[in-house]
């Protein structure tokens, strides 16, 4: 068994898959392993899929350990640790002859070759089932040549506040696992080049990145109603509300949340709402309010598969149309869709400035996949970031809706200056008072829509990856970024490139030029109808040649994309 290819060739990356039931601590294990691998000098990436339940079922995590960054889900399982029989079944379809399965043979009762680590027995001896995870950490540490001293220290700091006994038991569990692995794997090891600079890296998931971006954008108000997968952002801000002067309120419903946020902006706050499809559906009237009163607003919309409740803990890119067209009436908006954890931070930060500058709603469109995945990355750079506020001190006679050439009226807030701030969801005059003057109506519509011209000047251009002289142009947006990039590398074709959009709306004016150069245009979207391809057709008139879609609630895998792209190019 130790002749498994995994142990005999130096590897650029190894994929570890852990699977167990909800509540069994797979997420703790994931957290722990990625940190330890990172300390040891590896690049790490982790993504998970889980059920909408608190206990039972089968949840899994994939960790990729690598010499250089790899940041996309793959089908391949180099190492598979199923914590129970159901777990084994859950991912059986991905087991190949080269998969190293590690587990408790006695429990798993299976025909597969298992590297037997008696997780249950060891854990029981130490103090109970919960220690199984740490035994697994120990076993993997051995395989990945993690310095035992490093683990001990990490365990110490991690469990410190739980008291000495807990620390000791956990150390014991890790050591036992390490020791068992030495017996089972003998001198078999995994060879991935370590690097030194990753040690200075931070590890973030999408939710943390969005939340940090919000803080960096000057967010001082978040009102939200819990909803997977958006809750992480809300929780993160709640955890740091005192330090960063953030008012955090759990609203009674999403309608309240968005109306609070608009109220907060009106009075000078910088507010965020964070929600998912169903919750956002309830916010659409409030979005229209922001459109009418020209309120800045930042909406974090974390997508999950719909319609309705759908698959609450899964991923999809199915709400682009919703973000594009939500709200009755006509008003400008911006939609940003981070492709990476870095994007999630920088774009969210930027969203606050854009919202304030143009006095419009700005969307951060993420999804469960991005929100729940993490990897190591260099520290975020704050130097170039500034919080741009566009609030003026008002004078007597201030007019909130002064008709200006570019459509933007200087924005005052109550109590700052002598002016009065009057906003109205009805059509209004320059002062903000309700009007039925229909000529003024036209001027106000024009004024609001005129801002689009200004906004169009600042659109983030789509980015081209791969050859300049392409025949085949892949088009992707949002969280599929790393996956398409990796597939592209794998395909290694000199006729194929990726045009990646992290700003979806307005569509950048250079888009048509890119499309016209292509012989074949292939959209890759994590939805069932190719929503972005329709937007592009609507904007450029160009029809796509192929749609590569996935809507089973999971992100694309690299293998999947390689195969599907290969089939059409």
């Amino acid at each position, binding site marked *: 068994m130790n002749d498994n290819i995994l142990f005999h060739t130096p590897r650029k990356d190894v994929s570890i898959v852990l699977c167990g039931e909800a509540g069994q601590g797979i997420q703790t294990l994931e957290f722990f392993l990625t940190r330890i691998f*990172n*300390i040891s000098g590896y690049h790490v990436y982790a993504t998970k899929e889980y059920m909408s339940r608190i206990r039972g079922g089968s949840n899994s995590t994939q960790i990729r350990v690598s010499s250089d960054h790899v940041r996309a889900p793959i089908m391949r399982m180099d190492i598979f640790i199923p914590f129970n029989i159901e777990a084994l079944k859950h991912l059986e379809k991905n087991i190949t002859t080269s998969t190293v399965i590690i587990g408790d043979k006695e429990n798993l009762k299976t025909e597969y070759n298992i590297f037997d680590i008696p997780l249950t027995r060891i854990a029981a001896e130490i103090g109970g089932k919960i220690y199984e995870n740490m035994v697994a950490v120990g076993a993997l540490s051995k395989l990945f040549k993690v310095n035992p001293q490093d683990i001990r220290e990490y365990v110490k700091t991690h469990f410190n506040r739980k008291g000495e006994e807990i620390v000791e038991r956990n150390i014991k569990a890790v050591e036992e696992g390490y020791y068992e692995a030495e017996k089972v794997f003998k001198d078999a090891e995994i060879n991935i080049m370590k690097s030194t600079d990753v040690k*200075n*890296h*931070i*590890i973030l998931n999408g939710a*943390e990145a969005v939340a*940090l971006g919000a*803080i*960096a954008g*000057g967010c*001082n*108000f978040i009102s939200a109603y819990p909803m997977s997968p958006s809750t992480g952002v809300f929780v993160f801000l709640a955890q*740091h*509300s*005192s*330090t*960063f*002067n*953030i*008012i*955090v*309120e759990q*609203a*009674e419903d999403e*309608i*309240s949340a968005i*109306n*609070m*946020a*608009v*109220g*907060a902006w*009106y*009075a*000078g*706050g910088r*507010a965020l709402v964070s929600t998912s499809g169903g919750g956002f559906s309830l916010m659409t*009237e*409030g979005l229209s*309010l922001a459109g009418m*009163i020209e309120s800045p607003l930042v909406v974090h919309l974390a997508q999950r598969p719909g319609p309705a409740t759908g698959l609450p803990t899964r991923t999809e890119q199915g709400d682009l149309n919703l973000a594009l067209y939500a709200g009755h009436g006509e008003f400008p908006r911006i939609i940003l869709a981070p492709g990476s954890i870095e994007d999630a931070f920088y774009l969210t930060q930027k969203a606050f400035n854009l919202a304030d500058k143009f006095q419009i709603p700005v969307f951060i469109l993420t999804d469960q996949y991005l929100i729940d995945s993490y990897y190591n990355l260099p*520290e975020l750079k*704050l130097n170039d970031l500034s*919080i741009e506020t566009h609030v003026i001190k008002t004078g007597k006679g201030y007019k909130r809706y002064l008709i200006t050439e570019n459509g933007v009226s200087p924005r005052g*807030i*109550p*109590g700052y*200056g002598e*002016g*009065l*701030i*009057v*906003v*109205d*969801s*009805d059509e209004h005059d320059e002062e*903000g*008072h*309700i009007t039925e003057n229909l000529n003024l109506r036209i001027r106000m519509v024009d004024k609001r829509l005129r801002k689009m011209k200004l906004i169009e000047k600042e659109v983030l251009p789509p980015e081209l990856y791969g050859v300049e002289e392409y025949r085949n142009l892949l088009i992707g947006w949002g969280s599929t970024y790393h996956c398409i990039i990796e597939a592209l590398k794998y395909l290694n074709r000199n006729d194929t490139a990726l045009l990646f959009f992290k700003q979806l709306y307005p569509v950048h004016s250079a888009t048509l030029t890119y499309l016209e150069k292509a012989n074949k245009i292939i959209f890759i979207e994590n939805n069932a109808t190719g929503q972005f391809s329709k937007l592009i057709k609507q904007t450029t008139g160009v029809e796509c040649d192929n749609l590569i879609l996935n809507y089973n609630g999971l992100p694309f895998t690299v293998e999947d994309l390689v195969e599907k792209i290969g089939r059409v190019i």
Partner: protein
Amino acid sequence: MATNPFDMQNIDIAWCPGCGNYSILKILKDALLELEIKPEKLVIVSGIGQAAKTPHYLKTNVFNGLHGRALPAATAIKAVNPTLTVIAESGDGDMYGEGGNHFIHTIRRNPTITNIIHNNMVYGLTKGQASPTSLINFKTPVQVEGVFNAPFNPLSIAIALDASFVARAFAGDYKETKEIIKKALKHKGYALIDVFQPCVTYNKINTYKWFKENTYYLDDSHNVYDRVEAFKKAVETEKYPLGIFYINPNKRTFEENLAPYKNNRTPVIERKLDKTKLIDLIKSKKNS
């Protein structure tokens, strides 16, 4: 007479002649003047409806938002800048129908907001359908055989939620109503004032006369700190009591409870991001 800084010149008021809203507007302006509240430091938040047009007829800061959604906006305004005086004003349909959920949960939060409801027991602006407070048998173009759903009783519900200030007033009584509104404006925490308001166009039942005949004032013997007594008064329907029903002086306000205001009363909008703290937080994600 002193000119009132809240007066607006040359405005076309969209209410029917004789409407109870005029009296409420006048009372409110006078109360604000007497309390020496500055127009720049006041925000009136409203929804949509006839009552909700009120803030357009005062010279002050106005947030005229969506139908039913005044309270969440008002709560946030007060939260980000507690130095502002915040009034949330709208009709019965707006606050108790469309906005019913916010009504309840705002009471739970207890922000310092004066919530004035023009209760005409009808949907005025949409031409006379029943509102949640319409009385049984009230006939309308939609409720053709008369209302049959039990009327919404804002007072008993507020008391059930242990609201910190609960009152009912009548637009026809200048002096009494002004006093109630002034007390509410001085109150720390959420204050509900349900104001009976005759709609001369769509409610031919609950007229000035009807309200006069079917109301009476709570007298000094009423103990505003006794919740059960207040409840008893609130469910009276033979005649409807007016006045302050209930005060809970022990509730902390929403603003006081918020994390950023625990040790620092500066409005959050006046604070700056401390970048070093953010850098520290980011650094803490190194193997944290």
